[in-house]
């Protein structure tokens, strides 16, 4: 679906090449996968995201979308149609003054007939559960609602894949929950491939696969469970782990043999209860 091979990129500040942002990066994302990308600010996550729909082109190596090289200029719009993008600031990606007209923006650009646009817009708005707001002005909606409109705007292109660059960074807990629910629904109902760039570990824990980036390359690429159990490594990269994982891990470090392969409250409680039982039976 999405493939990066030996990807190399650096920003040019006009005078000299400044530090390499992406350094020989290799990544292969399969159809229907939900991949979370973690990394501190400036590690190259956003730069990577912009390569997936040809907003940026590799300076070295290649990026393929469904087998099409993003360097192929003829195919640029085919690629963009297949990869929907959602960005951080909802105010700066909504084009129109009415929700449904904004969602219609991409299909209009693709030259789709009016009746089909109507259908796509309604479907997309229903998928993100914003249909009853279709006539509203976007600037009067909450952050979470705006971001769902932005998602609807992307899926109205009927893309194969959706790439989100910190879509929850500017939202409050309720807005974040709304967006995560929408992502999980997209994956379950439409089998959408989702790439989610985030700073929130609880969001990454919901993914099928977590990719941790540092300094322009991938440090870890594994299931959330296997990634978050590497507490020390994540901390050294300036990242967090879910509180329960951290607790179980620190208990372990103090010499209490609690299983720290846990991501949720229930799992952690189970692990602690197991440990308590083992002490008691040992007595």
């Amino acid at each position, binding site marked *: 679906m999405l493939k990066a091979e030996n990807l190399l990129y650096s920003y040019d500040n006009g005078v000299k090449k400044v530090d390499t942002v992406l350094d020989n990066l290799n990544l292969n994302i399969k159809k229907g996968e939900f991949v979370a990308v973690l990394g501190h600010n400036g590690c190259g996550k956003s730069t990577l995201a912009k390569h997936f729909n040809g*907003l940026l082109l590799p300076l070295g190596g290649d990026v393929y979308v469904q087998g099409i090289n993003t360097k192929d200029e003829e195919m640029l719009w085919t690629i*963009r149609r297949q990869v929907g993008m959602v960005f951080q600031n909802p105010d700066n990606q909504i084009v*129109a*003054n009415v929700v449904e007209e904004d969602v219609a923006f991409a*299909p209009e650009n693709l030259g789709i007939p*009016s009746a089909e646009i109507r259908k796509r*817009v309604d479907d997309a708005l229903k998928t993100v559960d914003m249909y009853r707001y279709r006539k509203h002005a976007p600037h009067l909606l909450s952050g979470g609602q705006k971001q769902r409109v932005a998602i609807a705007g*992307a899926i109205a292109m009927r893309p194969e894949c959706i790439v989100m660059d910190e879509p929850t960074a500017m939202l409050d807990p309720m807005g974040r929950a709304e967006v995560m629910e929408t992502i999980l629904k997209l994956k379950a109902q439409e089998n959408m491939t989702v790439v989610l760039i985030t700073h929130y570990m609880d969001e990454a824990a919901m993914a099928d696969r977590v990719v941790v980036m540092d300094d322009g390359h991938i440090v870890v690429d594994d299931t959330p469970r296997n990634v978050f159990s590497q507490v020390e490594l994540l901390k050294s990269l300036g990242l967090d782990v879910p509180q329960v994982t951290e607790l179980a891990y620190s208990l372990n470090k103090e010499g209490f043999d609690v299983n720290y392969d846990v991501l949720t409250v229930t799992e952690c409680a189970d692990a602690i209860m197991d440990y308590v039982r083992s002490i008691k039976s040992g007595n």
Partner: protein
Amino acid sequence: MLKDITLGQYFPIDSFLHRLDPRTKILIFILDIVAIFMAQTVESYVVLILFTFLVMLISKVPVKMYFKGLKPILYIIVFTALLNLFLTQGEDLPIFGYSVGITVEGAIVAAKMATRLVLLIIGSSALTYTTSPMALTDGIEKLLKPLSKIGFPTHELAMMMSIAIKFIPTLIEETDKIIKAQQARGASFDTGSIFKRAKALIPMLVPLFISAFRRADELAIAMESRCYTGGDGRTRLKEIKFTHKDLAATICFLMFFACVIFLDFIF
């Protein structure tokens, strides 16, 4: 405050006016402006005021909203009225028996000018309240279409307008926030000499421009991501159509228009 500015905003409800072809509304609005400036006699003003009232009623937009639209322009209206009132030469108009420098002609001109401005503002409010910016720019684009044959960038112009309108509320909010943030650091925008005040605007304008550029940049990326390539080959969610409703509205307006002409030139 800045948030009270309603000019250029769309009021999303459903009414006969909302459903009209934007081209019809734009053309009627233009002719309305012509009529307003042609009107000379009291009778023709009555007809125009009547027409404006009718439009306000049919639009189903609360009358309050129209008055809110007038508020920011109120000073200009009062100011021009005062200028006309005192600066027009003519027969003296005594107030309670005293001469205060007001002339009969001045009073008439002032009343006319004030009425004209109010009618203009309400007319433009009626247009923007009932026409979403997208539809409005669509209408303008279609009306200007003949010009694109000689290389005039009609689509680009229309798109720029619609985006500008979309960002008005966002930028107003942003300005409000920056002003408050600088006030919290002891800035005052309303004291001191004109020079001092102008200088005090820098801490407000610099962040505002930076933010506008950042927004523009992000918006361009978002639009490109959604396959925007300019006007060629674009379709629309709502293709605008000239229907019998538009015909009826046009005929109805032309009757008013004829009335004004009749009252001014023939009567």
